């Protein structure tokens, strides 16, 4: 019987081929996010008081709760990889499904957060937003920009999760399953990594 270590070692080049494109995308995307976050930080140095006030208006506990959800979803997708490696297809499928549920909870949290900020007049497009000072409008513009770009990445991640879930349920070829799972794990972990920078810069500093 071929061991899982052998499968990984034999398909070393193929796995590397699949993930090389993803890694290049992650590298470029990461630099884009860092640029946006650095711009937000530099605005913070310019409008210190307004940024402090703006942060007091955010739903801080929602932000922290989102962090916990995303980190835990990173754990579950990692555990699904371990489960599949240990030839436990059912457990792997369960973990991927749990990750999907966590992603849904994240989106729901975000919706509540956005609605709260919209009602308080901090979301661009609302009438009250145009009356805000330069510092406050700068904060909320970059805040929503970064958050929306992150949400686009999250939706893409959810699409990958759904495709992976269908593949696991259909019980396709083992090597293909492993490649798709590896791809999703790397992408989802990348989202957690990005959030590890977004949360402190938007909410804490």
């Amino acid at each position: 019987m071929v061991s899982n270590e052998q499968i990984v070692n034999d398909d070393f080049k193929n796995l590397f081929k699949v993930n090389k494109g993803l890694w290049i995308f992650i590298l470029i995307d990461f630099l884009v996010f860092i640029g946006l976050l650095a711009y937000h930080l530099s605005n913070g140095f310019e409008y210190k008081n307004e940024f402090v006030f703006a942060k007091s208006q955010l739903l801080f506990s929602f932000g922290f709760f989102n962090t916990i959800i995303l980190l835990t979803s990173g754990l579950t997708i990692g555990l699904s990889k371990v489960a599949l490696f240990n030839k436990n297809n059912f457990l792997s499928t369960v973990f991927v499904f749990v990750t999907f549920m966590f992603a849904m909870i994240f989106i729901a949290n975000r919706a509540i957060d956005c609605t709260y900020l919209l009602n308080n007049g901090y979301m661009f497009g609302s009438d009250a937003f145009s009356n805000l000072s330069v510092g406050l409008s700068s904060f909320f513009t970059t805040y929503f920009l970064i958050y929306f770009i992150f949400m686009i990445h999250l939706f893409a991640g959810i699409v990958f999760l759904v495709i992976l879930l269908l593949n696991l349920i259909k019980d396709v070829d083992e090597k293909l399953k492993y490649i798709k799972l590896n791809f999703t794990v790397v992408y989802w972990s990348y989202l957690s990594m990005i959030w590890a920078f977004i949360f402190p810069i938007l909410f804490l500093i």
Partner: protein
Amino acid sequence: MEILESIIHPQSLQRIELLSYLATISYMILLSYLGLLLSSTLLSCMFNRKGKKYINSHYIKLSKDLISIPTFNLFASLGIVLLPLLSIMFVYAQIVQASSQLVFDNLFFIIFLIVPAVLLIYTYKDSFELADISRLVNKTNETESKKEEFNIYKFKSIKLLTNSSRLAFYLLFASSYILIAAITLISDSSRWATSNSISSMLFNEATLISFLYFLSTSFALTSILALYLYFKPNSNSDESNIKYQNMITKFFQNTAMIFLLVQPMLYTVDLMSIPKIALANSIFGISVLVMIVLLLIVTLLYQMMKNNHIKYRGVILFLFIGLFALLSIKVQVAFNTSAQLQVKEIISVYNAKMVITTEQLGIK
């Protein structure tokens, strides 16, 4: 340290509530890992000594296995110990501020005990391998001078093994005791003004009882975790080691049972030592839940001992994690209740500051 007053910002009510939840999670992880380190180090030292005295290889093997439970990665261990300790320190600094300077100072001092203790535990674990190598090398046919040299290495490695384990245990014991003393003091706001010396903080009935309870929980946790890890699914059980397996099953089950049976009594005494200022309805509700969980754990453990199997070890471990969560919640609820006045003061300062800031910015 008047520095505290200058560096801490006043906080809003939502933030203080969040901080108390974070402190609960930090307690749960810190107390369980610290207890695991303390009890596994002590048991490992005991079995190592016994193994050398009776020249029993099973005891030495058990000693090695026990110390390998909490020592998975040095940086992870340091992170699991330091991060929650710093979190708890700064949470108390923000909520209580200058009211209890002694607690903050002692929590800071614990860092200087705990980091060397963790490093020494890893040294102890690695010195097992050193001692094995030096024993193996000694058996080869070498010249007299080389044999003498290897004898010196063997002696030094065994000395390192003994000294590192002993020192690690003393440092861990001291840091755990100071931590429990700090936790007990912070839950009693009536003692904050009067407790100005370390001796009044350390030599206190409530501290002693809480520490005894902490020790009993730690030993029970180590035994249950060892049972789970040794017989976990997908592990190859070596049939030539059936005698060893039977020995460790019996030892861990008996240890867990003994330390679980004393828990209800110790918990009740600990509950009675909680000061009136820190009591709340939820503490009694948590106590009822703790007793129910303890009863479940003891029943399942008894079933395993009676029917000579280890089927319920996973369930027992998860119930024990739940128990630790309840104990952490109890500690934090006691603190929240006793610090109500201080929290109200901080919130009023924060609200006043926010009014000034909004006026300055010309908002609303």
